[in-house]
Structures are given as C-alpha cells and as structure tokens.
C-alpha cells in the first residue's frame, strides 16, 4: 500500500497526538502502577528487579511505536515470568536474555505469517481459563512472601488492600495503589520495621540500560537450551497480547492490526533481550487501567515506559525502602482485576462442556505453571466436545416402497471420523432388499473415515445381493469418493476394512 504523505501525517497525528492530555495523565498513572508489577514479576521469575524494570521500559517504548494497538500497555508480565523460572534457575541470566531474543524472533515470524487470525481458534472458555489461571498464579506467587516473614506483614498487606479498595470511594484524583505504597513505606520506615523491602530483593537500575548481546556461546547447544522456553514464551506472549488487544478494541469500539501487534511484540522482545530485560507481552490489567484513565493513543504507552524508567532512576533510593508487603497488596489487586469474576456465575448458565474446558485449562496451568500447555489442553478439549456435538447431528431416516423392494436411506448431517459410528448404526444391512438408495443430498462426507463407512455399507449390502445406488453426493464428497472409495474396485470385499 502506498500512502500519500498527507494521509501518513494525518494518521501519525491521530495515533500519537489526538488526545495529548488524556494520554499524558493515563501514562503517568500506569507508570506508577507498573513499578510494583515489574518488580513483583522479576521476583516471580527469580531475577533482580532491574531485569523486569528494564524490560517494562523497553517493551513499552518499542510496542508503543511498533505495535498494532494504540493505548495498549505492554511490559514484563506474570504469564511470561512463570515460564522462565526454571531457565533462570538452571542456566542463569544470560540464557534468559538469549531466550527473550529468540522469543521475539519467533513472534516476528508468527506476525509475518499472519498467525493472528488463528486467535479465533482459541475458544472463549479457554480464554476465561487463561485469565483465571493467570490470576490464581499471580496470587499464589504472593503467598511465599508470607512464609518465614514476621507476623507484621499480615496487617501491612491488609492495610494496603484497605487503602487500594476504600480510597477510590473518597477520591480518584490519585491512584490508590500509589497511595498504599507511599503510606506503607512511611509507616515501616518510621516504625523501624524488620520487614523485607524491595532493596532486599536484588539490584535496582542505577543507569540507563545499555546494548549488549547476551553472554552465551552462539552454538546449536545454546539454541536447544533456549528454544523449549522461547516457544511457549512466544505463544503465551501472543495469546495474552492479542487477547488484550481485543479487550482494548472492545472498550474503545475501534479496530487494531493484530499482525502488526504480533510483529511489534516480537521486535519489543528482541530489543529487550539486547538491553538486559526479560521477555514480556501486553498486560490485561494495566491496559484496562490505561483506557480507564483516559488514554486513547500510542503516546500513553510511550509515556508510561519513559516515566517508569525516569522515576526509577530519580527515585531509586526511595523505591529501595518500599516494604514487600505493600507490593504484595498491589499484586493481590492485580490478580483480583485479572480474574474473570463474571465466569463464576456463568458456570451455572453455560453448557457443562464449556465449564469443563475452563476448569481443565485452569487445572493444567496450576499443575504445570505453563499457560501454553493449559491453552493447548483447553483447545483440544474444546475440539473434542465440539466434534462430539456435531457428530450427534448426523441423522439417518429411511422408507421402503414395497416389502423386499427398494429402501431409500436419507442421510442428513456431517459424516466424519467422530460421527461414523452413529451414522452406521442407522442402517440395517441384514434386511433382504432388491435395492438400497443412499440419498446424501443433505449430508457432507468429510474425510477418509466417512468414505470407509460408505464402502463398508455398500459392500455389506452387496454381499446380501442388494443393489446399491448413491445419490445426491456433493462435489467435495464426490471428489473424496473418487480418490478413496474402494467399493467399485476389483477385489473389494465386505469387512475388508473397517
């Protein structure tokens, strides 16, 4: 597509500068909310907070420019952090950076192959399972902060949650999570509490991130270590990003370019891996906060990333003394926001199969800590349920003109590997008849199993001396019969395959 300079400038203005005040304000709010999350997810992944903070900065900035969904927030996320835990523990940080780059490259390839459209193959029940599993995992990751900690952490977290949930009833002028963090930090500092702080969790950024290729040997062996992590990371990153893009589309009643988003996420991860950050993706909760704070354009995402890093660098010494209990409270809020609460009453209304898919997805993720695996199992379960449902739609009716004469079987519905049993049970091949007509006008033959079933019927009827006529086969079915059917080939025998 060739764009004239004027439409290009017009689009650029619309995507960056059409809502400056709202975007600046929302970007600031999100930057503040990103700090505890980026630190929290670094801890989940088992790396220094600076790895998550650098990642959130660079992913936000690159996705703002290269992504396909304006006003969406991307950064270090829980879904991705959980997938890298064993890589970091077994092989160390350089391999995480290498995996992040490979993740990005895979996502760019997915984007170029236009795989975004396959998102609709992920059913809603699986998506609900995805966000619910994610929410539960974020919550569970907070529980370990309580073990071995002084009892004072309980009232601290409770006070944090109270501020987060009660303050918005009084005022929405300042973000409640920020107030909670500041208030709890003041309390713990003045009380001289022994509770763990952010500074105890590892190194914070003290300078701008710099470009450096990961210190790993560029060998096939490195790739075999990194790829089993990069593949699920790429997949989960895209699923969460495209789901989030859909949510922002829905909230703002606008469209977005999903393939550009996939490429943008990929590029963001490649850059992030080169600047000492961990792989990330779009963030459901933060993007909702962003739109809810008035953001509409790419400017909000860019501002969020830049503010985030600026605040960390300027206020690093203050960030260091934030008690972990305050972050735990914020992360519990994030998990509550991520959970799909509407899905709980929905379980009573929806078909049982959808509830099983949703719970199955959640269950697999909770056991394996792998969202990619959960989605795989969820999609597979959905396909099974769907094919079973479709299989029930095959119907065989028949009528006889005179006893021993011609029986016409009318077949309606989808004949394929799941439905052939139900299909075959509609026939009586032992009946003594002169002729059998199989009327397939209202049926569709889908696969080799369907053709084999037709073969079986024809040959069984013929074995009884009955003449068989096929009628009303559509073009696709005829093509399949031509290619695969054996009942008219020499030597075909009833029961020969089946």
């Amino acid at each position, binding site marked *: 597509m060739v764009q004239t300079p004027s439409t290009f400038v017009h689009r650029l203005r619309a995507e960056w500068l059409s809502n400056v005040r709202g975007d600046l304000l929302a970007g600031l709010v999100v930057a503040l909310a990103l700090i505890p999350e980026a630190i929290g997810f670094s801890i989940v992944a088992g790396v220094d907070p600076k790895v998550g903070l650098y990642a959130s900065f660079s992913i936000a900035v690159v996705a703002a420019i290269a992504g396909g969904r304006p006003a969406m927030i991307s950064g270090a996320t829980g879904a991705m952090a959980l997938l890298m835990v064993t890589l970091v523990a077994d092989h160390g940080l350089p391999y995480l950076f290498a995996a992040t780059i490979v993740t990005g490259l895979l996502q760019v390839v997915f984007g170029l192959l236009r795989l975004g459209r396959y998102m609709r193959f992920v059913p809603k029940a699986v998506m609900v399972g995805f966000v619910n599993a994610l929410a539960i995992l974020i919550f569970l990751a907070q529980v370990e902060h309580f073990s071995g900690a002084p009892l004072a952490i309980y009232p601290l977290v409770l006070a944090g949650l109270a501020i987060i949930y009660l303050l918005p009833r009084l005022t929405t002028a300042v973000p409640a999570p920020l107030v909670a963090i500041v208030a709890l930090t003041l309390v713990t500092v003045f009380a001289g509490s022994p509770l763990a702080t952010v500074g105890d969790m590892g190194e914070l950024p003290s300078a701008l991130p710099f470009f450096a290729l990961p210190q790993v040997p560029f060998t096939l062996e490195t790739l075999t270590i990194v790829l089993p992590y990069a593949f699920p990371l790429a997949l989960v990153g895209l699923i969460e990003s495209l789901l989030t893009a859909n949510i922002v589309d829905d909230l703002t009643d606008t469209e977005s370019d999903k393939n550009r988003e996939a490429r943008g996420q990929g590029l963001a991860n490649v850059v992030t891996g080169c600047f000492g950050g961990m792989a990330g993706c779009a963030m459901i909760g933060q993007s909702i906060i962003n*739109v809810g704070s008035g953001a509409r354009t790419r400017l909000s995402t860019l501002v969020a990333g830049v503010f985030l890093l600026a605040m960390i660098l300027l206020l690093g010494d203050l960030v260091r003394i934030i008690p972990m209990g305050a972050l735990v409270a914020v992360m519990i809020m994030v998990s509550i926001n991520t959970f*799909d609460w509407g899905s709980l009453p929905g379980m009573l209304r929806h078909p049982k199969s959808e509830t099983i898919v949703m719970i199955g997805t959640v269950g697999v993720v909770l056991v394996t800590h792998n969202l990619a695996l959960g989605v795989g199992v969820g999609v597979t379960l959905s396909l099974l349920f769907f094919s079973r449902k479709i299989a029930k739609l095959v119907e065989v009716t028949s009528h006889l003109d005179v006893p021993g004469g011609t029986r016409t079987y009318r077949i309606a519905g989808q004949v394929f590997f799941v439905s052939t049993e139900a299909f075959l049970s509609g026939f009586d091949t032992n009946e003594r008849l002169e002729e059998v007509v199989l009327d397939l006008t209202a049926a569709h033959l889908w696969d080799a199993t369907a053709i084999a079933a037709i073969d079986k019927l024809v040959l069984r009827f013929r074995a009884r001396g009955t003449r068989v006529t096929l009628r009303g086969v559509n073009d696709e079915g005829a093509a399949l019969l031509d290619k695969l059917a054996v009942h008219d080939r020499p030597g075909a025998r009833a029961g020969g395959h089946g």
Partner: protein
Amino acid sequence: MFVKILLPTDFSPSSEAAMRLAREHFPAAERCLLHVLDPKRIANELASPVSSKDERDAMEREILEQLRAVARPDEAAVVRVGTAVETILAQAEGWGADLIVMGTHGRTGVAHFMNGSVAERVVRLARGPVLITHENRP
C-alpha cells in the same frame, strides 16, 4: 431556518435545558439525541475482561433505553462510543446536522482545567453553528 438539530446529552440538568430550548424554538426541525459513551467508563466498570464486548453492548443498550426515555417520539436517539468532542463532531458531520444545541456545566477553576469544557471545544471545532445553554436558564 435550522432543519436538522443534534442534541448531545449527558443526562445533566444543563443538557435537559438544551433539549427544552431546542424543542421550544425549533419545533419543526428534525432532532437527534446523542449520548457519547466514554471508554473510560466502560473500562472502569468492567467485570469480565474476556466478555468486554458483551459488557460494552449491554452498557450501550442500557444508555439507549435511558435516552429513549427522555426523547420524544419524533426524536431520534443515538449512543456512540468515543471521546465526547470528537464523537459529537463526527456525528454532526455524518448525520448532516445544521445546528448543535448543547448544555454547559459552567465549571471554573481546577474542575474546568481537569475536565475542560466539552461545549467550549465543540464551539471551537465545529464547522456549523453551535448553541450553548446554561442549566439555570429559566
């Protein structure tokens, strides 16, 4: 004579005053009531991220009901999602309104700085004439 009048409303007393004004002075004109649903509101009331489309649709339906309740039988009612000023201008252009009649809250100071005035910006950016009224107009 104005024949097509757009009436943006946020259900506040000032927009009701604007509606009265339009009905009184342009009884023969074709009138269209418009409510702009801000994505901010949808995002802040979202309970189920995966069903965000359903929730937006439900909210739009609910507001359309409210709008129909205040509209007269001969008036059209439209709900659109977007930012207030841009959406009002787009609807005026698209529908071919030759006059926009709307209320202003008359906020001043900090509240004015934070919320701006939608009416003020519509006046500045609209291609056609705009009529503004205050809520305490008799």
